């Protein structure tokens, strides 16, 4: 712990750089993926192009992108922007696929009902489609964020500053504490961001929670396995009712 008390300003600075390199790509990636996914959803040409393209992109190792991008972008090899562009590409690769699925799995009846009620396309997108796609998007964002945080440290191998620098520096100077601090800090950032996203998703999807089912429903379910479907339906209905009555606060 001595090492940390002596070096905490440097650690804080690296943590800030690490955070920036992992969060900025998530935000940019999200802003690019959602319109792309909406365009691709149900489109005969764009959908296979985007879906195949993104899975191929995801196959390319991050270190490869870190090295190749400067040549294309004309940046220095140790520039932070390389990491940001590379990780943005990965975020897009993850999110486009999950968002396409999310938009395509929306209940057609709900969309038609929205149109029938007089929603214009843009309003319908922001008012109906996007909120309904939130659960899937949050799941994709969580995966992208956690894997970004892990990938950012790899940049240290080619000299890009992040918490990963603590690993390369710690190895060179044989300081175990430095490496341990780096690992712990990385994990803490990952866990905190993941939980923040989970909470965000939770507050944005109140409608999705069906509340706690009436206790007798679960008892009945086991009572006669063959009738599971019936009681399951009753459970859902009871849950939906609970949500309406309690404003969704029961869960």
């Amino acid at each position, binding site marked *: 712990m001595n090492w940390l008390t002596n070096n905490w300003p440097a650690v804080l600075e690296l943590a800030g750089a690490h955070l920036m390199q992992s969060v900025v790509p998530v935000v940019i990636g999200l802003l690019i993926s959602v319109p792309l996914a909406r365009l691709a959803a149900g489109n005969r040409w764009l959908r296979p192009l985007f879906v195949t393209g993104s899975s*191929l992109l995801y*196959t*390319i*190792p*991050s*270190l*490869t992108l870190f*090295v*190749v991008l400067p*040549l294309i972008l004309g940046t220095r*090899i140790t520039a932070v922007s390389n990491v940001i562009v590379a990780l943005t590409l990965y975020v897009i690769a993850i999110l486009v696929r999950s968002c396409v699925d999310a938009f395509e799995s929306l209940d057609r009846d709900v969309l038609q009902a929205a149109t029938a009620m007089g929603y214009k396309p843009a309003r319908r997108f922001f008012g109906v489609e996007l909120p309904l796609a939130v659960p899937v998007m949050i799941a994709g964002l969580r995966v992208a964020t*956690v*894997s970004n*945080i*892990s990938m950012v*440290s*790899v940049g*240290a*191998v*080619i*000299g890009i500053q992040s*918490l*990963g620098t*603590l*690993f*390369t520096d*710690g*190895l060179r100077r*044989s300081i*175990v504490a430095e*490496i*341990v601090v*780096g*690992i712990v800090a*990385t*994990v803490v950032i*990952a*866990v905190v961001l*993941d939980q923040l996203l989970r909470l965000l998703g939770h507050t944005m999807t109140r409608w999705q929670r069906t509340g706690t089912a009436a206790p007798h429903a679960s008892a009945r379910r086991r009572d006669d396995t063959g009738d599971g479907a019936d009681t399951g339906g009753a459970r859902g209905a009871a849950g939906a009712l609970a949500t309406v009555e309690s404003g969704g606060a029961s869960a």
Partner: protein
Amino acid sequence: MSLFAEAAQFLTDPAHWTGATGIPQRLLEHVGYSVLTMAIALVIAVPLGLWVGHTGRGGGVVVGLAGALRSLPTLGLLTLFTLLMGLGLMPPILALVLLAIPPILSGTYSGIAAVSPALVDAARAMGMTESQTLFRVEIPVALPVILGGIRNAALQVLATVTIVAYINLGGLGRYLIDGLAVRDYSRMLAAVVLVAVLALAADAVLALAQRLVTSPGLRSTGDRP
């Protein structure tokens, strides 16, 4: 663009295709580390995932464990283990195994857990023993998901093996680290291109394998007459 030309020159130079530092040798080392890592990870994660998925016990623990392992930075583990255990093959392999376990474990567990309870019930009702239910019903049905997890892990390992060169081991990362040391970007570029080609090729092979071992009954829902 001249760097790309130089990298291409590096890759096509016959001198780089022979000897102990030649591309075939580095490729072999790279694949060798990856295969060793995957073998160890499979031996640990697959039986554990099968057991948890089949019994339904400890599902929450497995999901939490996989999530925790995922957030561990491999470079950090690699350097830590090297400092603690000294140079050698085991520290990087251990770090890579920890990288490979989460996708395999959660793929195996969730694949088995997602098999319809009605199907498992039917298997038991027909008189299958527990192991017959697992091996004749649950595993074949979950195979696409299980293999998806393994494929994912293999890709991550192939990509990450590049950094073992950082602790003086071989593999394609050697060109990257050595090139970096002497500011020879063309060599670095050649290295990462090789890694990317290897990853794409491995992914294609694994995708094909996944397709071959998956029963047509599990994908043919569209061609109902």
